[in-house]
């Protein structure tokens, strides 16, 4: 029996009787008076010879048009007929998360999955194979393989280094590339949230619940003049356990202890570290999943800015200079200033110089007590609170046409921002210390710290030095070419069409990134650690099978799409119709 994809299209079948009606009206017996039936005598006599009733005869083109309409209506319904089929393609969704490597060698879910897939491929003949690695985003492991051996060659790309697996997204991709014609096999160590039934998807879980200690958080931050190490160790298993924690650098142990963690609990430890130590390694005892037992941490990035204070000598210059020094972000290097504080009307020159202009004090100053209107999305106002502050300024001041107000007292601009065509930022501040109290509050150094940090973030390089695997790692290149050195020593050249790119990181380890080859080469080291608590939780790993493919008998009876054949037949009928019409010189 045929099935129809769009049964509502049968409504279009009303065109068939409509066409017949039109032809009936046009081709019924039209009454025509003739002088005499003399010349039709032959036909009259032949009719009288028999008793056959003459019925209206319909032209051939009518039947052709009827056929065309019927074919098009049928095609519109999307008919599918059951036809014999023997083999389908197989699309395999492989869990690419690190938990697939849990367990002793020979019993890891990845190894069991390869073995299971081989058996399935041998038992049931598939037309072709396609592998999808399901990490946080699914990726195809190669072209369609026609033979199991070709498929096995693609397993090398299945690394299981992803911090998570979005299996539903991978199944969606499999469905979209199969067009409903392929069997789908999911190989994982987790049970499905919504178990599939009989049909196209078969879900096989090959994991086992195991005890596993894991680093779930690791950070190295600047704390004054030294670094501070923060580690969090979790035990997501069902029973309490112990593990040996060791913190080392260059083979030298800095800290060592045995950690006991209750079931489902975590343990945090903070260790001060001298800033001179380049890379720190923290390890736990070997357990089910080796990938989460080690972390590497490099020193945090300490950005400094070349700042010039060009204000005229006086209390204001002293106040601003002291505030800038208190941020701890001033660079001692010589060179073109990256941030200039001045009172000149002219915008300062310098390729990378941002500026803060302090307006001269007004002759008739006013004290503003609020309410202050602050653009909280601006980097200069991050965390700033002006409640209770008194701000002395010029009540006649107005916002320039190209400036954006950042802080205003009503409609009086206090801090404005101008973004130049060359990408540099220039701020204008009016502040009269004698009539203000803001500089007596912590908000004053916070404002300057915000400005310098904003400028520091615009410097080339990384924003952070320690990252979690799977997170974006933004990098501002100092040139158009970037070289990324991976933990295994291999180097990858990257192009930065814009200034900011996301570094392509797919495995944990210590990396180096270099840019600015043409003028000022900059190399930075950064670490990527696994740190995926959910993935380290092997208590939910399980084994089992859900869903099943159609039986071989079902498979033999497939629904085949006949739409193209119907459209072709309709086109052929249209050509025939055209031929008939042209032969009859347009008479229908």
């Amino acid at each position, binding site marked *: 029996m045929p099935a129809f994809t769009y049964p509502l299209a049968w409504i279009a079948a009303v065109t068939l009787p409509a066409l017949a009606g039109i032809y009936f009206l046009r081709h019924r017996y*039209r*009454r025509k*008076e*003739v*002088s005499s*039936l*003399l*010349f039709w005598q032959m*036909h009259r006599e032949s009719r009288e010879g028999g008793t056959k009733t*003459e019925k209206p005869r319909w032209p051939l083109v009518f039947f052709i048009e009827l056929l065309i309409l019927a074919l098009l209506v049928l095609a519109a319904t999307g008919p599918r007929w059951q036809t014999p089929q023997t083999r389908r393609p197989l699309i395999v969704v492989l869990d690419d998360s690190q938990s697939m490597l849990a367990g002793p060698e020979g019993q890891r879910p990845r190894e069991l999955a390869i073995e299971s897939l081989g058996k399935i491929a041998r038992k049931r003949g598939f037309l072709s194979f396609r592998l999808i690695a399901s990490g946080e985003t699914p990726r195809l492991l190669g072209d369609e393989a026609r033979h199991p051996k070709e498929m096995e060659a693609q397993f090398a790309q299945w690394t299981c280094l992803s911090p998570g697996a979005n299996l539903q997204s991978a199944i969606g991709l499999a469905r979209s590339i199969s067009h409903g014609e392929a069997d789908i096999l999911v190989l994982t160590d987790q049970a499905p949230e919504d178990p599939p039934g009989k049909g196209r998807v078969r879900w096989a879980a090959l994991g086992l619940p195991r005890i596993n200690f894991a680093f779930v958080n690791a950070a190295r931050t600047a704390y004054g003049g030294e670094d501070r190490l923060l580690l969090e160790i979790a035990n997501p298993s069902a029973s309490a356990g112990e593990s040996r924690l060791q913190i080392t650098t260059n083979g030298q142990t800095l800290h060592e202890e045995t950690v006991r963690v209750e079931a489902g609990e975590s343990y945090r430890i903070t260790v001060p570290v001298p800033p001179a130590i380049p890379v720190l390694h923290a390890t736990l005892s070997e357990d089910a999943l080796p990938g989460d037992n080690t972390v590497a941490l490099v020193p945090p990035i300490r950005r400094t800015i070349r700042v010039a204070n060009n204000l005229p000598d006086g209390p204001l210059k002293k106040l601003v200079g002291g505030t800038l020094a208190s941020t701890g972000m001033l660079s001692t290097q010589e060179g073109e200033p990256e941030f200039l504080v001045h009172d000149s009307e002219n915008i300062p020159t310098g390729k990378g110089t941002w500026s803060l202009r302090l307006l001269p004090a007004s002759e008739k100053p006013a004290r503003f007590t609020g309410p202050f209107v602050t653009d909280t999305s601006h980097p200069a106002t991050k965390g700033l609170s002006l409640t209770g502050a008194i701000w002395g300024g010029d009540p006649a001041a107005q916002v320039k046409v190209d400036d954006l107000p950042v802080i205003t007292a009503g409609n009086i601009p206090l801090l404005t921002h101008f973004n130049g065509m060359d990408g540099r930022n220039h701020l204008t501040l009016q502040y009269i210390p004698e009539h203000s109290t803001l500089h007596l509050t912590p908000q004053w150094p916070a404002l300057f710290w915000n400005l310098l940090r904003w400028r520091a973030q615009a410097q080339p390089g990384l924003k952070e030095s320690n990252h979690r695997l799977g997170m974006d790692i933004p990098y501002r290149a100092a040139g158009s070419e970037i070289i990324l050195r991976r933990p295994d020593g291999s180097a990858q050249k990257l192009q930065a069409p814009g200034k900011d790119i996301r570094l392509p990181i797919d495995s944990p380890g210590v990396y180096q990134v270099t840019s600015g080859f043409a003028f000022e080469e900059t190399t930075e080291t950064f670490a990527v650690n696994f740190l995926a608590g959910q993935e380290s939780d092997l208590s939910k790993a399980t084994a089992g099978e859900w869903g099943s493919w159609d039986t071989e008998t079902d498979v033999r009876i497939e629904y085949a799409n006949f739409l193209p054949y119907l459209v072709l037949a309709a086109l052929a009928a249209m050509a025939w119709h055209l031929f008939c019409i042209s032969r009859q010189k347009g008479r229908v």
Partner: protein
Amino acid sequence: MKHRPALLEGEKLGLRYALALPQATLAGLRGEQLGKRAGSSVDFQDYRDYQPGDDLRHIDWNAFARTDQLIVKLFREEAQPHLDLILDTSGSMALKGTPKADALLKLAAIFSTAAMNARCSQAVWMTGEGFNRVGNDTEPPSAWAGIEVAGAHTFEESFAILPPALRRQGIRVLISDLLWPGDPLPTLRKLSEDAAALYVVQVLSEDDLEPPEPGNLELVDSETGETLNLYIDATIREQYHQTFIRFQQSWDNAARKTGAKLVTLTAENLENSLRRLEEIDALEPV
């Protein structure tokens, strides 16, 4: 009368023509034309012996005194030529959607006017319950009365009921579409008998000449009302053409055998076809 415009137009057209008189066999009442036979005009023709029954007024008494024989003077007969105009006013001549009826009456008026121009007497006959004279048919066509082109009987039926009283040695003109079954020879023989000349003017419409376009048709005989349902296709159209050609040939043959002159005119193109009447010597320009 609804046909008067056609008669008036025919009368106007007929003023250009005179009926061509065949000199060989003219005969008629006393009139203005000289006949071939001896008659009573003032033109002397010959002498012959008296025979009982001869008009005593024609005895040449001078010759009797000289020869003692009764000699009769023969004068050339003074003949009045006569036109018998026979109109087929059966239903087929009033075919709907065609100007056949108008063409019939125009032609009749043309011949009548041409006859008057030739100083011929005339009688106009039309079909019906037998052949009947048209009212006032000796008058110009515009004065004719009682013409109806939708007779219930065919030409042959009318002839069988009451044939027209055609004058001996008259000129006879039959105007018809000739569309009736049967052999045309007997009909033409009857009409040509004792006629000075017989002209057969066949008036057909384009619908008669060309079969209908292909399709399903219910054909209705305009005279009998009989119907025939047919799907007309190219084959049937060709058969129609062949039958029509054979039909025309049968009339040509019959005309040739009886000495009649046959001409076929198209009703839709009548005025341009009048030259054909001159070609068969039925009419001559004035």
